[in-house]
């Protein structure tokens, strides 16, 4: 039975990447390499105001003094920043006012990915900002949202149309000196989504950004800024895919969230960048800085992520709990298969009184995958009554993969209660036996157990995404397993 199980695991872990196609579209590209001129060129191509250019240059100059961080439990081949194309945009008429202005080839691409850009087809659906390589292609439902005062558009448009808002909040959570990749992003970021929910508004639909890397040799550097004003609510989704290529491509994004008093933001990610082939060749390097600031009292930020793609993932969605009674949550499922590596987790910084945070992290390793949870729970001196609960479980499928847990707990207030627990195990033979006994094949049993294991996190996803996430888990791990 042992062998039988191994065989099933083998089959299971050999699912193919579905989104590996390339769209043949004309692209406007700045030649590879990075220097001040490139930064200026990106800025001028986007017709940016002076202050934004200054911000980019400041970041770029700082970046030149920085070194790539080495502390993560990852083996990353050297990245040659001068060989990367920092700007690639699908060539199209500027600012399509309706769907008919959008290049049909582009539409077909997003159709193929299952991303609805045609509003009328989805009555209650999801508002989507579709980003291809460096620029935003189309944002749906803008008008409907605008009626409620919600601003949802591409970052470049926001810079033009709402410069005061952007200037106020840009880099207020992730400063341009934050870390190597965030600084790089600050210098060269090309586009991304911008969202503002006004006071007291409950956003009626899920907002979503879909990222697609298409051009080769490019890096993708998008920047998302999400502001939830007092007493507002928004649920935000993010999805991503990339073609299959032999070379590694760099994705270094920044996401900033600001939650004012009483606001609630739910940010969900289904990350499905190309993970590389079975020998570990190619794939996306996903080095992302995501951070939310619970600025006002009683605010709440919740991160949910399903990480199935990328050759290397380096990502720590964090919450700074500054307002009293604010809440931070982090739910994560990370899957590493074949030669994928992930070093992911969260930071919960408790500053305000009675702040609470919950961390649930589920790692699944298969093949030669290495999966690390790295998290920090920090309770500052003034954070009276702070409360944290962390749970990090790892599941090992196969004997060549690894699962690692590196929690950091720093407590400077005696009234805080911080708990951390973690387990690592494989699927028990008794569990499989139990299923077999009841007529469930070994293959189905593994699927069942993996899904049950991840359920706690997947349940936190909005319904539309939960279905996709579940399917993804199956493709990444289960192949034919249902």
């Amino acid at each position, binding site marked *: 039975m042992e062998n039988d199980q191994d065989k099933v695991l083998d089959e299971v872990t050999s699912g193919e990447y579905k989104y590996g196609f390339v769209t043949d579209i004309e692209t406007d590209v700045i030649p590879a390499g990075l220097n001040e001129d490139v930064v200026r060129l990106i800025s001028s191509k986007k017709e940016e105001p002076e202050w934004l250019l200054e911000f980019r240059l400041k970041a770029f100059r700082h970046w030149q003094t920085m070194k790539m961080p080495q502390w993560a439990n990852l083996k990353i081949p050297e990245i040659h920043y001068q060989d990367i194309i920092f700007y690639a945009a699908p060539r199209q008429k500027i600012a399509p006012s309706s769907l008919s202005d959008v290049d049909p080839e582009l539409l077909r691409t997003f159709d193929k990915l299952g991303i609805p850009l045609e509003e009328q087809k989805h009555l209650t659906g999801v508002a989507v900002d579709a980003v291809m390589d460096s620029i935003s292609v189309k944002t749906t439902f803008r008008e409907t949202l605008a009626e409620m005062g919600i601003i949802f558009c591409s970052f470049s448009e926001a810079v033009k149309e709402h410069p005061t808002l952007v200037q106020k909040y840009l880099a207020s959570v992730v400063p341009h000196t934050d870390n190597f990749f965030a600084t790089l992003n600050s210098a060269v970021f090309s586009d991304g989504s911008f969202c503002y929910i006004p006071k007291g508004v409950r956003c009626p639909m899920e907002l979503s950004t879909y990222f697609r890397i298409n051009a080769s040799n490019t890096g993708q550097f998008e920047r998302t800024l999400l502001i939830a004003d007092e007493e507002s609510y928004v649920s935000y989704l993010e999805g991503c895919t990339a073609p299959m290529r032999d070379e590694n491509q760099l994705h270094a994004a920044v996401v900033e969230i600001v939650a004012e008093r009483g606001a609630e933001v739910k940010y969900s990610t289904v990350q499905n960048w190309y993970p590389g082939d079975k020998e570990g060749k190619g794939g996306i390097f996903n080095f992302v800085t995501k951070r939310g600031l619970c600025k006002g009292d009683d605010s709440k930020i919740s991160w949910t992520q399903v990480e199935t793609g990328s050759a290397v993932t380096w990502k720590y969605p964090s919450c700074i709990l500054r307002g009293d009674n604010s809440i931070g949550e982090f739910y994560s499922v990370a899957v590493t298969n074949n030669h994928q590596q992930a070093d992911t987790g969260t930071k919960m910084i408790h500053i305000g009184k009675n702040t609470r945070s919950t961390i649930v992290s589920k790692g699944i390793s298969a093949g030669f995958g290495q999966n690390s949870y790295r998290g920090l729970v920090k309770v500052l001196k003034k954070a009276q009554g702070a409360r944290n609960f962390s749970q990090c479980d790892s599941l090992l499928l196969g004997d060549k993969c690894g699962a690692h847990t590196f929690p950091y707990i720093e407590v400077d207030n005696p009234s805080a209660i911080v708990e951390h627990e*973690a387990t690592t195990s494989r699927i028990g033979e008794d569990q499989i036996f139990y299923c077999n006994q009841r007529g469930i094949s070994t293959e189905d049993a593994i699927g069942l157990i993996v899904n049950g294991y991840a359920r706690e996190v997947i349940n936190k996803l909005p319904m539309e995404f939960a279905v996709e996430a579940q399917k993804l888990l199956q493709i990444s791990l289960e192949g034919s397993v249902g």
Partner: protein
Amino acid sequence: MDYRPEVITRFSALYAASRDGFRKESPELLNRHREGAYSDFIRLGIPDRKNEAYRYTNLEKYLSHDYQGYYLPVEEDFREAEKFHCEVQDLDVWNMVLLNGFFPHGDKGLIMLPGGIWVGSLRAAVKQFPAMVEKHYNRYVDNETDGLVPLNTALASDGLFIYAPRNTVYTKPIQIVNLLHSEKDIFVQDRNLIVVEEGAQLNLLVCDHALSPQHFLTNTVTEVFVNRNARFEIVRVQNQHNNSAKLTHTFIHQERDSFASSNNITLHGGLVRNATWHLLEGENAETHSFGLFLADKHQHVASFVKIDHAAPHCNSTQLFKGVLDDNASGAFNGRIMVRQIAQGTNAYQSNNNILLSEEARMDTKPQLEIFADDVKCSHGATVGQLDENALFYLRSRGIDAREARLMLMFGFAHDVIQNIPIEALRDRIDTLVMQRLRGELSRCASCAIQCN
């Protein structure tokens, strides 16, 4: 300002001076390792907060102090030490008093205990069992993460040696009382080697006391080799004053079917850092690492544990607890490493801490690094206060608040104490901890010399 270059210069001067000093007296076998160790020390330097193993421990205050001398034993020093008597009642042990890590009359040869276990100084061991010391000395240390370990190899001149030959069993525990006593502020570097051969059993109790109020910096490296089917237990009771810093590095190397257990009870000390490395090299070995500390004032107590599962079917547990009061700070840094070959591993790690005051601080970092799939590994860490419900339960039964708190804290600490294998000592530590929690135990109360 980085204080470290100055300290490195000072240690380098000490190393250079040792060429004409104690090195001439030292056995060639120890001298042979010094050159390489010194260059390792220079390469690694003094660990600072950028070193993950020292992330929460700042050595500056104790390392930058200008210690007036490097301690080398003089015969008459020991006369004072021999007056020392352990105050633990009914403790039936074979007892030996060390002074600043040195064995009295070190060159007079090893002592054989009934049952065939040898105890003595490392220098005497080099003469008596050269092949064995050669085989084990400086073999189990980790020279890659912590510069203070090679520093010890470069500078140490002597220390404790225990050898339990094949199938030897000494029924009583061996108690080593290590006294710190000096007229000057001193830097102590002792180097210990313990070899437990196949089927032998050794039960060791090490008590640290500081007798004089001078500043002490102790940097101890202990290597333990536990051969097949052997059993090794060590309990350390650390009770030093707030001017002393104690850094211990213990490397336990285990072969097949062996058993080892380490228990560090820290009652007092300005800065105490106990690093324990367990390497499970043979199948079916079992290892336990325990620690308990009670810290107040500005004390800092750090525990570092690494359990390396390098063979299949081994079991390990870690249980570390801390109670922090006043401005005390504590750190826990524990790691379970399960290598790919180590299938069938069971490993458990737990770290619980109670903060009693506004200013107390605890940082903990329990880690798992797992490369094998047929394993059961788990860890847990908590930082918090006494359970309100439990307090309420006790109070509703007529126990006053103070007593209820004490009971709960005592119960909390007893979890670790109950793992001490020697009953008389267990009771004694229970009493000491109770006194300590009541605030009755200043350092002097527990010190047998009663100098004031």
